[in-house]
């Protein structure tokens, strides 16, 4: 270990230090002052996030097990931002008396998870990838059951862990097959040996389905809605934004680098998956009333769009995926922030409960509308740009039919986003959510993410920046 490797590993090291530090600090905080840990954690994590932006050259460590590049750094930064926003949003929830004794754990576990993700993204072999992946998913099952007094939360936790264990078993089985045919776990060694033999294809499909599970790609998505509904909103937000982001990042890197020799095959598999994902996600989202389930299915649809970028299979594809993820962070977290704020204030988490919200809480409604429109891909919000570039990426490879299908599905998705808008702005309610003020960290996070929604689309330099990173990676 030298300075160079420390800088390369700065995200992971910073996080480890922060997590362990917070965990230790917790020991010295008396029970009745535990809520101070919120502030401490926030400050620490803000620092981590900021320090993550320190530029550094990419490089390879541990004989290829760890690959860092500008692109992976940027991906980690995106995840950091997302987690920071989630932390900001969760203050209200954590301040509730029943959670006071497990505040620190919340932060620490999420930071650990984030470390796992960072390693996963930087993985240079399948072992580190696998271990990172598990680090990034197992503890979340615990957090899903964070509201352990709630039956739904308990149910969510157990569903998540069992299904995710199964999916990782399947994925591992696939990896073993790939190992069998290539003789290595290192990406760089595997790459030249990948051919479209039945063994590799089978292994690849097992692997892909495992990743599909993490990304909630239909038909591997069934856990999503239940877990999202049962888990506390912050964890749902984390699952839907950060987990998905990390999985998408590493999957696209692996697909574009390791498996690029069988791209013809995986493109066609993804072709089918895109269609099923978007369509099924839409169909289920259509009839949800619980806002969390609704957002779950909506996020499935969004992943379907994201896969369009995978179809791009070039710099543009990578760029559009990362760009979309960035936008998705802001967009979805705005939505989750609003949902959380409302839930904390009034325990309402159904769409029908949102009726008349604009009358009582105009700003929150506007933020929600912004988020929903962005999800629906309405200009000039960032979602439009994100989606358009994903389409562009797919179209750049000639998948026009797919683009048409996806775009038509985007229209359907608009239907249910508008349904929420309708509930908030148009419908009258005898019993609307009462007027309230959300906590200041929540407001900060909503302001940041709303600005993100508006700004990221217009800011072509962000897109160009990502593109330059993508060029560096591929």
């Amino acid at each position, binding site marked *: 270990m030298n300075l160079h490797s420390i800088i390369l590993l700065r995200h992971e090291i910073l996080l480890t230090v922060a997590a362990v530090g917070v965990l230790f600090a917790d020991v010295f905080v008396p029970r009745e002052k535990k809520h101070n840990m919120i502030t401490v954690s926030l400050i620490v994590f803000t620092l981590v996030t900021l320090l993550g932006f320190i530029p550094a050259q990419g490089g390879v460590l541990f004989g290829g097990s760890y690959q860092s590049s500008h692109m992976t750094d940027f991906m980690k930064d995106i995840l950091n931002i997302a987690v920071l926003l989630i932390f900001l949003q969760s203050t209200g929830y954590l301040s509730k008396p029943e959670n006071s004794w497990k505040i620190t754990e919340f932060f620490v576990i999420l930071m650990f998870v984030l470390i796992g993700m960072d390693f996963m993204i930087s993985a240079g072999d399948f072992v580190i990838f696998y271990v990172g992946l598990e680090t990034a998913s197992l503890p979340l099952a615990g957090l899903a059951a964070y509201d352990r007094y709630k039956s739904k939360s308990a149910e969510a936790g157990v569903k998540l862990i069992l299904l995710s264990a199964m999916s990782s078993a399947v994925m591992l089985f696939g990896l073993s097959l790939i190992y069998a045919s290539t003789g290595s776990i290192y990406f760089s060694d595997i790459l030249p040996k990948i051919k479209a033999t039945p063994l590799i294809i089978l292994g690849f499909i097992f692997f892909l389905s495992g990743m599909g599970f993490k990304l909630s790609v239909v038909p591997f998505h069934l856990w999503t809605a239940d877990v999202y509904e049962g888990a506390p909103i912050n964890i749902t937000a984390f699952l839907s934004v950060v987990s998905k982001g990390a999985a998408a990042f590493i999957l696209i890197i692996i697909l574009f680098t390791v498996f690029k020799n069988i791209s013809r095959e995986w493109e066609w598999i993804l072709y089918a998956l895109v269609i099923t994902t978007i369509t099924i996600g839409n169909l289920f989202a259509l009839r949800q009333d619980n806002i969390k389930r609704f957002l779950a299915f909506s996020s499935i649809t969004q992943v379907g769009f994201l896969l369009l970028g995978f179809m791009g299979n070039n710099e543009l594809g990578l760029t559009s995926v990362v760009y979309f993820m960035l936008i998705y962070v802001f967009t979805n977290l705005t939505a989750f922030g609003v949902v959380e704020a409302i839930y904390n204030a009034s325990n309402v988490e159904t769409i029908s409960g949102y009726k008349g919200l604009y009358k009582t809480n105009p700003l929150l409604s506007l933020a929600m509308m912004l988020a929903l429109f962005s999800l629906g891909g309405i200009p000039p919000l960032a979602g439009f740009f994100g989606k*358009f570039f994903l389409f562009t990426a797919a179209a750049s490879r000639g998948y*026009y039919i797919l683009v048409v299908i996806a775009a*038509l599905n985007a229209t359907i998705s608009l239907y249910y986003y508008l349904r929420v808008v309708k509930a908030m702005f*148009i419908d009258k309610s005898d019993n609307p959510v009462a007027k309230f003020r959300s906590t200041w960290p929540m407001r900060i996070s909503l302001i940041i993410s709303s600005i993100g929604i508006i700004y990221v689309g217009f800011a072509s330099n962000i897109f160009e920046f990502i593109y330059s990173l993508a060029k560096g990676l591929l």
Partner: protein
Amino acid sequence: MNILNFFIIVPLITVFLILFSKSLKTTRIIAAVGMTIQLLLALWLMYYYLVHYGLKQLHKMIFVSDTVWFPTLNIHYAIGVDGISTAMILLTAIVIFAGVFVSWTMENLHREFFISLIVLATGVFGFFISYDLFTMLLFYELAVIPMYLLIGIWGSGPKEKHAMKLTLMLMAGSALIIAGLLGIYFSTPIVNGHHTFNMLEISKYTLPIKAQRLFFPLTFVGFGVLGALFPFHTWSPDGHASAPTAVSMLHAGVLMKLGTYGVFRVAIYLMPEAAHEMAWIFIILTSISVVYGAFGAIMQKDLKYINAYSSVSHVGMITFGLLMMNATAIDGAILQMISHGIMTALFFALIGMIYGRTHTRNVYEMGGLLRVIPFLGTMYMIAGFASLGLPGFSGFVAELNIFTGAFLHADLFHRVATILVISSIVVTAVYILRFVGIMLMGPIKHEEHLKLKDATWYEKLSTITLVVSMLAIGLYPVWIINTIMGSLKPIMLKILGG
């Protein structure tokens, strides 16, 4: 700074100021001032273009500016106008100007209303000034979406359902457009390492015919949905019926023109070869639109439905004219865009005003209104006459151009289609006069209608603005025709040159 940017900046500033307005009074004054400035700008632009190029039948893109936006994809914020877009901008400015005055007493959530309305207009202006396909798309969708809120919140009847139908159908159209635009983009040759979204650039190439065959119908239908192309027009009656007055005006008057303008500027202009090949399909559809819309209007009861179907018919004629693909017909089609825009805006404005007084839009419940509200009644008749293509109003000139242009095709198919389309003038006369007769003439059906008040100053202002605009074209059309003709020259070269 490019003057065209003001067409976006002025509304944005207006919107921004409205955010801080406290009462309806200040809101509407801000909106009115903003839109008046916009109208003056548009008039100045038209004047400028006329004096320098229009009257001499010259073509020039003026105020061209081209800022690179997304260098990787070669997306630019490219703006500039020629005679056609200048005319469309003027149309938009007129209609939104009138629309603001029509909404003078919008009590409910006034700030939000005017903001949405003006945002919508911004989208339209942006669409007309840009010549980069991406920005066009962006503004296009920007213009479509506030519609949902405008109808959903301030509409009437089963407004949510209708707003949803409208939004979804239009966005579905836009989905096709997205695919079409991307297809066009990737069919352009790579210059300096990039494809291009720049319409002017693209028009210099002949896209591969295979690509054209795929993307022409996509873009055509996509834009056609907004242009109420049969059988994708059903959002129009419902949407218009539920929309508040100013929105109906803007939507029928301007937004539907986005569709036809897109059909023209993107589908036909960029892919003329496919257009020539496939025109017959769409000629059949538009001919159906024209006659079908007219017949559909006869049996309606609701004033807005009547006008919506009539719009289907009239806008169908625009697309029909475009598909004839000669200068005369296209010229007519563009004129028809403007003419129908103003005419139908006037109609909807009047319907709103009449509804505001009688509280019904069912024609069969009204009667003899000419007696009690002579100003509005007369205006309604004028709108009716304009709609049935009476000489002196812009519609006549436009239709005549379309018909004459269409008749330049001597083969049986075109002739039959054209004659079918021309026959709509009779059907139009039937329903217009029928409803004018029922509603404005005859005995007064309800006692309380005797107490109705005639137009107020702002109502007069908005209607008269529109009528004057129609007359300005209808009485002496040479100025606008020369402008359009001049700008059509290079386009025709592309369309016909092949």
